[in-house]
């Protein structure tokens, strides 16, 4: 049945779509029906019965028409017993009473039953003050108990390092169990026993070996599950709560920070706001601690002589500006480069490149510090469909077919993974995971297809996919010459050759292409595995062609999503932190469009594209680039080649670093500006849906720190630029005036959740011919880098919990490979790459393919870039067993 239904709730008639639940209809009618077990992301269960209401339908006569009462209204035949509103869908003409004596009595009865065994220990329960049971007991419950038996009791348990379980308080709503199963895909919790003895715990009653996301805690309506890191820290009424955006990955979840005094005490999901609502991954929920760290820098450091000495902001600004001016005067502006910025807000990123381009006159600006090959700043923009309306998380969960290209979403984009798992469980989404390792989503329990391509065979796989899609016919509207050329160049990639290079049966590739093409609602996801690849340019072009061929890119909409490495990777690119793009992806070479910026910024801008990050790395190591400004990036760790980065920092005449901590990179700097954390500044960040979201100032900045934007403005003014932004909003207003795609966006509309930006700059469908040759494979083990769930970047290392959860760093080998190398689990190996060696203990796992070694790059101890810059098609290394017991991770 479809179409709207008329329902009357407490005498108010409203129209809701058929299939709406009674509780939801009541909410729309402005009537509050209490709930415990029902949750909008979970299917109805009806476990707790608190939502009981009286429901009636019009009485039908023998002629199937409503019987009219004496008052001329249809007679209602009431169901003999109260019904649960959260499991009943509305029907035409339905009548619902939520406050009738019968409904109230039933609800009171349910409340009494729920409290029969409840310990009522609110004073010592962390949920107290924001507990739904407490609120409802207050609203509906009795103030005495008729229960005089002893209450049933369980022992409390620590289910691992984050979940504390106090089963006495559990009302067996099963939200935690269902959430963990259907949305986390972890299935880590279960209900033991039956009836009053039902107890939630892990299956084996051992500590949970799960994602440690704490979402079970979040959805528990009572205090049965509470967070150990927040245990007894504060009461909800002590906290100032601020909704801001998570500082970790590109999903841009909204987090609600709880602040007491000058400390962030917890982070939670939001109930009804943000892309994620209640969801947070372990990093978002427990990774805020770096804000409170005592190790944060609190004064600028300047290297006047040999050592970095604490200084004042004014001195540091003057020093930085005068050195920049000197270097520009002697060696030209092209000897200055600006790096990093994926963690800046949009406004800060805008000022950063404006400083480089307008105040100094250099186009050497790049936020993509990890990319090992030079790629145009527009490549990702074009691969994701230019300014077309982007794919959102709501689209993702409702998609029929999703193809994930080379990305381990668990490590890089946990919320995207949760959306996919939910779609798979609840909405018939089908997953195709192309990844050399059997990552979580490739697990058979998600019933997807795993394209286990050989390590470093991304190019062959994408060409195979493109070819198979092309064989299905091409959609209308693609350029004929491009299509012809692509067809010609793809001829070199015969099915046999693709099969041989990828190790995946061509039939599977063809089936994946077929599914993607046939699906009406689809999504194509890619991320660092393709962009931080030595052949990134070819891969991004191939993604673009595949997307056009399969219909993932259409004239109006894009179903391609780029999952960047940081919370504002997208915003940094949007704001022109790329050597060949001005903000809004305006090419620097486009004289016409550049003029708009020149007029607004009051001066000529360099018209030749600058160097990309990896080119800057190389020329700085050679001494051609003499000054580096590195922002929110521990470059020594993130640059593709550690040795080159060290050389570059050693040779540079001026290194300026903005950071919260004295990182390895900051130690090598001449000026270090201490900056405010994400919780201390206001600004806009852009997530992978290209959604603009405003962060708020939950805390006043730590004494001695400043926002990056303030520092850029101070230096620009010291360099003689006439900048006079009084607030972040001023900067955003300028952006909204100048930058295509951001034009006309109002700062005031960005809370709670902005919209994804779209622009007129859509570009025509583009099909680039592919290279016929494959890169020679090289000798040795293929190194598979990859993120892990528990750590992301240097900020996560500054928390107490995350490194503990991540456990000791391990390189992972297939058992067969380990046999070949004669290493056992826990023993250490030395990996030798083109640039150097690292040593690390191994663990064995058959989910990693033979012929490769998986080295997670997120651990502080693993300095993967010591192995050197990868060359096409990927990094290879020689592995040896190390016999002597030495410190793990030492180079």
């Amino acid at each position, binding site marked *: 049945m479809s179409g709207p239904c008329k329902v009357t709730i407490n005498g108010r008639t409203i129209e809701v779509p058929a299939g709406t639940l009674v509780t939801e209809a009541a909410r729309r009618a402005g009537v509050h029906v209490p709930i415990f077990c029902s949750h909008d992301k979970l299917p109805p269960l009806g476990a707790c019965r608190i939502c009981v209401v009286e429901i009636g339908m019009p009485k039908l006569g023998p002629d199937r028409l409503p019987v009219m009462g004496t008052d001329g209204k249809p007679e209602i035949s009431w169901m003999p017993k109260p019904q649960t509103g959260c499991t009943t869908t509305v029907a035409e003409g339905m009548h619902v009473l939520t406050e009738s004596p019968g409904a109230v009595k039933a609800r009171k009865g349910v409340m009494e039953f729920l409290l029969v065994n409840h310990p009522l220990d609110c*004073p*010592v329960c962390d949920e*107290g003050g924001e507990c739904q049971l407490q609120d409802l007991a207050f609203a509906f419950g009795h103030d005495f108990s008729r229960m005089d038996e002893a209450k049933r009791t369980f022992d*409390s348990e620590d289910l691992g390092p984050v979940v504390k379980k106090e089963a006495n308080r559990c009302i067996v709503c099963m939200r935690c169990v269902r959430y963990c199963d259907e949305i986390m895909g972890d299935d880590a919790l279960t209900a033991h026993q039956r009836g009053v003895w039902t107890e939630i715990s892990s299956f084996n009653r051992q500590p949970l070996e799960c994602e440690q996301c704490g979402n079970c805690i979040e959805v528990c309506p009572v205090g049965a599950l509470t967070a150990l890191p927040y*245990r007894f*820290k*504060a*009461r909800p*009424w002590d906290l100032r709560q601020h909704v801001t955006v998570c500082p970790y990955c590109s999903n841009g979840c909204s987090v609600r920070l709880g602040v007491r005094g000058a400390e962030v005490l917890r982070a939670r999901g939001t109930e009804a706001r943000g892309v994620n609502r209640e969801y947070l991954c372990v990093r978002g929920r427990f990774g805020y601690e770096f804000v409170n760290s005592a190790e944060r820098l609190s004064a600028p450091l300047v290297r006047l002589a040999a050592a970095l000495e604490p200084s004042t902001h004014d001195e540091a600004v003057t020093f930085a500006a005068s050195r920049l001016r000197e270097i520009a005067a002697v060696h030209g502006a092209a000897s200055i480069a600006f790096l990093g910025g994926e963690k800046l807000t949009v406004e800060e990123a805008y000022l950063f490149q404006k400083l480089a381009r307008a105040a100094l006159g250099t186009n050497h600006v790049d936020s993509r510090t990890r990319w090992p090959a030079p790629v145009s700043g527009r490549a990702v923009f074009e691969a994701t469909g230019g300014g077309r309306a982007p794919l959102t998380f709501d689209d993702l969960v409702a998609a029929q077919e999703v193809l994930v290209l080379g990305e381990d979403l668990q490590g890089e984009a946990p919320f995207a993974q949760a959306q996919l798992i939910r779609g798979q469980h609840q909405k018939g989404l089908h997953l195709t995971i192309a990844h050399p390792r059997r990552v979580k989503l490739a697990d058979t329990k998600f019933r997807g297809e795993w394209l286990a391509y050989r390590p470093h065979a991304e190019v062959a796989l994408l060409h195979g996919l493109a070819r198979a899609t092309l064989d299905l016919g091409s959609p209308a509207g693609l350029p004929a010459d491009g299509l012809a050329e692509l067809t010609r160049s793809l001829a070199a990639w015969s099915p046999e050759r693709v099969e041989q290079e990828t190790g995946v049966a061509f039939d599977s590739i063809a089936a994946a292409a077929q599914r993607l093409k046939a699906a009406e609602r689809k999504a194509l996801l890619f991320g660092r595995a393709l962009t931080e690849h030595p052949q990134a340019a070819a891969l991004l072009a191939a993604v673009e062609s595949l997307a056009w061929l399969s219909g993932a890119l259409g004239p109006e909409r894009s179903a391609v999503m780029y999952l960047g490495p940081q919370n504002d990777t997208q915003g940094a690119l949007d704001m022109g932190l790329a050597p060949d793009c001005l903000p809004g992806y305006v090419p620097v070479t486009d004289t016409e469009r550049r003029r708009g910026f020149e007029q607004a910024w009051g001066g000529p801008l360099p018209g030749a594209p600058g160097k990309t990050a990896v080119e800057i790395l190389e020329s700085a190591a050679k001494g051609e680039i003499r000054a580096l400004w590195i922002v929110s990036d521990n470059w020594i760790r993130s640059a593709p080649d550690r040795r080159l980065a060290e050389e570059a920092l050693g040779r540079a005449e001026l290194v300026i670093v903005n950071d919260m901590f004295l990182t390895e990179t900051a130690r090598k700097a001449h000026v270090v500006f201490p900056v405010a954390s994400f919780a201390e500044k206001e600004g806009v960040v852009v997530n992978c849906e290209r959604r603009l979201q405003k962060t708020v100032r939950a805390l006043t900045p730590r004494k001695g720190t400043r926002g990056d934007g303030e520092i850029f403005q101070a230096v620009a003014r010291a360099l003689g630029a006439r900048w006079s932004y009084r607030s972040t909003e001023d900067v955003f207003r300028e952006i909204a005036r100048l930058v295509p795609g951001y034009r006309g966006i109002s700062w005031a509309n960005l809370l709670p959740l902005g919209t994804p930006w779209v622009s007129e700059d859509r570009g025509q469908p583009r099909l680039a011919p592919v290279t016929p040759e494959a890169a020679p494979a090289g000798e040795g083990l293929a190194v598979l880098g990859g993120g892990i769930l528990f750590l992301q970047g240097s900020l996560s290392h500054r928390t107490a919990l995350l490194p503990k959860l991540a456990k000791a760093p391990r390189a992972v080998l297939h058992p067969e490979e380990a046999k070949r190398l004669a290493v056992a689990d826990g023993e250490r190996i030395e990996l030798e790459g083109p640039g150097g060696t690292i040593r690390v203990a191994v663990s064995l796992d058959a989910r990693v393919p033979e012929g490769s070694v998986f080295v997670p790059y997120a651990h502080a101890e693993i300095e993967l870039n010591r192995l050197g810059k990868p060359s096409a098609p990927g990094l290879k290394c020689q592995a040896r067993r190390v016999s002597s017991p030495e410190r793990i991770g030492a180079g």
Partner: protein
Amino acid sequence: MFKELGKGLGVTLENLFRKPFTVQYPEEQLSMFPRFRGLHILTRHEDGLERCVGCELCAVACPADAIFVEAAENDPQQPASHGERYARRYEINMLRCIFCGMCEEACPEDAIFLEKKFELSDYRREAFIYTKDELLVGPEKSGYLPQR
């Protein structure tokens, strides 16, 4: 006229020989009425453990926002209170306190009472922030609950 004079003098004389009302404070101390509300105490159970569990209900009930509580988890070997939670810090700012007794009323554990002590002057403002060790009764008063 003399009659009136005598009457007035009579009152004077009568009062002259009456036991005086005036208390020679501070040499002498008055005993307070049973429901007098002065400085708070934090009480102990019979076994000497603190009654306060650090629930902060007193703090949220306090209309003057005078109470600060920071809870922590008990060390099971050496618990400070019954159960898992206790108040690691408990502070009352007596410059803010208006002696309304709401904290006492809010406390689910009978842990806080306004007792008879009212001599709360000092030269330093900091001294008016009464900390837990100043408020908590000694172990010899374990089990003591003021009668109201």
